[in-house]
């Protein structure tokens, strides 16, 4: 009786929160829908953000674990089975998924977390694949073992579970993300978070400081697993169909990309990265079969120019740091960001279908050739000269690139708009960055112990 009242109260509180959030989100969602991100897409962006956070938990502790796709599968299957077979409430089923993922993480983590770097990565990939194969075959095995007469159908093998009720709402996701963001923000300043940072920076020193390394590593692993489990539950109830192949090796690597693309220097990095990695292919979808290639190219560009991820754009130290290479990177960073922005935002009043980055395909080849040429020549410079460019060479490259880009742009000059100017500016900056050569790759390669993002 009393429990029922408590549940009612909790339900009422959540309902209130979600109502408020819905009210706040509606205008944003309509705005986003106008520029091509309809609600399902937004939901997947948010789910990706949660997944990014889940891997951030482990990376933040120096653990290169790729098990999150497996935990996502566990969470998705458990929570979907809970809602579909046992009519559990959505919140409870998510909790169930998270707990299941966390419980699976304990026996996995204890032996496996002793491994380092790639060995840990591959062992966790192995775990993810084992989960996938188990899910694929659990029906036949269970039938054979317990009940040979009447087939047991739990995961439906390769067909997956379909006709899942669509329970995920954007408000839920936003609420969960805000909660997680807040918790992570608090965590980074807490004893717990500092211990993890210490472990990431140097495990041995952390041990000597009295930090229980095994405990914290396992905690990070389990927490990451639980977050991934929740993300799985959300995604299962958003796609309405889940199959084992959704959670394979490629998903595991994608999740890593969310976190690294966003940047590991800050907790918001994985959120931004996850959303970006859903938004970019979505925005490039009109290219049909070239979407994958272009997504790869954008990924490549962003990470080459912003090696510490997208968040480094927001960090003052990134802009302050001196040096020519940094200058080039900054310029190129802005340039690329602007080019991407002109495509993402409705600023791009430059036609729609046969146009990419505001350029027609045909012109794009010229542009690509130009950029490639710049790249080639800049990277030809021997390291011993400090990557310095001789004046004639830089003039030739610059002029050539400019010529190609102008040739590319001229086709569109009849329809100038805001987007056009922003695009031109972005391209110019990116070109300028191309003319400034890469930093001399001089003697000091950071030692192998260099930790990603820890100095940011």
């Amino acid at each position, binding site marked *: 009786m009393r429990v029922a009242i408590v549940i009612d109260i909790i339900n009422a509180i959540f309902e209130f929160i979600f109502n408020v959030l819905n009210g706040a989100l509606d205008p944003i969602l309509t705005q986003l829908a106008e520029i091509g991100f309809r609600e399902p897409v937004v939901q997947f962006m948010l789910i990706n953000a949660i997944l990014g956070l889940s891997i951030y938990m482990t990376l933040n502790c120096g653990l290169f674990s790729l098990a999150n796709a497996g935990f996502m599968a566990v969470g998705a299957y458990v929570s979907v089975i809970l809602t579909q077979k046992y009519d559990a409430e959505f919140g409870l089923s998510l909790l169930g998924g998270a707990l299941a993922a966390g419980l699976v993480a304990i026996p996995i983590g204890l032996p496996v977390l002793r491994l380092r770097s790639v060995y840990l990565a591959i062992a966790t990939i192995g775990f993810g694949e084992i989960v996938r*194969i188990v899910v694929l075959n659990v029906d036949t095995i269970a039938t054979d073992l317990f009940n040979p007469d009447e087939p047991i159908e739990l995961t439906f093998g390769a067909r997956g579970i379909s006709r899942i009720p669509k329970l995920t709402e954007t408000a839920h996701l936003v609420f969960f993300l805000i909660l997680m963001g807040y918790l992570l923000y608090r965590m980074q300043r807490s004893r717990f978070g500092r211990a993890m940072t210490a472990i990431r920076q140097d495990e041995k020193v952390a041990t000597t400081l009295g930090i229980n390394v095994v405990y914290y590593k396992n905690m990070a692993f389990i927490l990451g697993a639980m977050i991934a489990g929740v993300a799985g539950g959300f995604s299962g109830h958003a796609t309405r169909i889940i199959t084992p192949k959704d959670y394979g090796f490629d998903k595991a690597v994608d999740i890593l990309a969310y976190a690294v693309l966003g940047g590991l220097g800050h907790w918001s990095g994985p959120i931004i990265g996850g959303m970006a990695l859903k938004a970019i292919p979505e925005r490039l979808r009109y290219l049909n079969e070239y979407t994958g290639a272009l997504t790869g190219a954008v*990924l490549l560009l962003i990470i080459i120019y912003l090696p510490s991820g997208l968040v480094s754009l927001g960090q003052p130290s990134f802009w302050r740091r001196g040096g020519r290479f940094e200058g080039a990177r900054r310029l190129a960073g802005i340039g690329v960001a602007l080019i991407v922005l002109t495509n993402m935002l409705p600023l791009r009043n430059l036609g729609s279908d046969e146009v990419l980055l505001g350029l027609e395909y045909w012109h794009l080849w010229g542009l690509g050739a130009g950029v490639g040429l710049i790249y080639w020549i800049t990277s030809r410079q021997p390291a011993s000269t400090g990557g310095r460019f001789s004046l004639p060479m830089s003039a030739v490259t610059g002029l050539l690139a400019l010529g190609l880009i102008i040739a590319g742009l001229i086709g569109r000059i009849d329809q100038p708009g805001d987007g056009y100017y922003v695009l031109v500016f972005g391209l110019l900056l990116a070109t300028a960055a191309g003319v400034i050569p890469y930093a001399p790759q001089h003697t000091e390669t950071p030692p192998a112990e260099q930790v990603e993002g820890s100095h940011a």
Partner: protein
Amino acid sequence: METFLQQLINGLTIGGFYAVVALGYTMVYGVLKLINFAHGDMFMWGTLAGWGLLTTVLAGFTDLDLIAILMVSVLIIAFVGVMGMTIERVAYRPLRTAGRLSPIISALGAAFILESVARNVSDARWRTYPEGLLKELPDLRLTEKVALSGLQMIMLVICGSIMVGLYLFVQRTRVGTAMRAVSLDHNVSRLMGINVDRIISIVFFIGPALGGLAGLLVGIYYGSFNFTLGWTFGLKAFISAILGGIGNIPGAVLGGFILGVAETMVVAYGPDLGLPDASAWKDAIAYVLLVIILIVRPTGLLGETVAEKV
């Protein structure tokens, strides 16, 4: 016993492919401490290019499949090798000083590009190699029921000579010595007068070129492929490299053979051991094996213990 021998032969053939692809992973990891996620896709490009080239060559130039395959393999070595060097220059070199995770993402970007282009080239369909390649070679009968088919023999000989050749190259030549030096320490190698960038370029030629060649062999052996081969087969090869201890060339070979043999044995003996649907479980068992080996030997079978972090 006879089944065992036959399965051993089959397993060794498949393991040979894994091993040759794993060599690429392991060499790149050796010099750059980088997981080259694009390697599997370059391997797949070897298969894809082999399909295109073999069809053309057999249709237009020669009827002798051995000669056609020889011509095509030279082309593929050049093509995939140059592809690897280009990817190194574009995607990895700018990030050489940027930590350990960023190059993984640029590798992923490169892999996306390669895979997506391959999907378009192959129309996202399963493609089959020309029929009857190397089929008229005589089988080698070992006993009544155990036979080493001509195709398997060629595959084993090629894979074996690649491994031995690479090992000798790395151990005996000046460039190989330079590679080993670079894999130990970039800076000290530079002090010794080694052009590190050039060595890395060479590694990025040899690794993918061997991978591409393995791709061609896989295509000939299995007869059909599609563009996802890069991920699935590449993952297996990567596992082989890790299993043997990444960065270690004999390790990669050992890992490849172990994985190949283990897989075939599971399929062959699974039903007797109470796994009715053994082929469904063969991957799972490969992974369980991997995890167990890693728990017992955290740096792979032949790997050295080096302290490092993400």
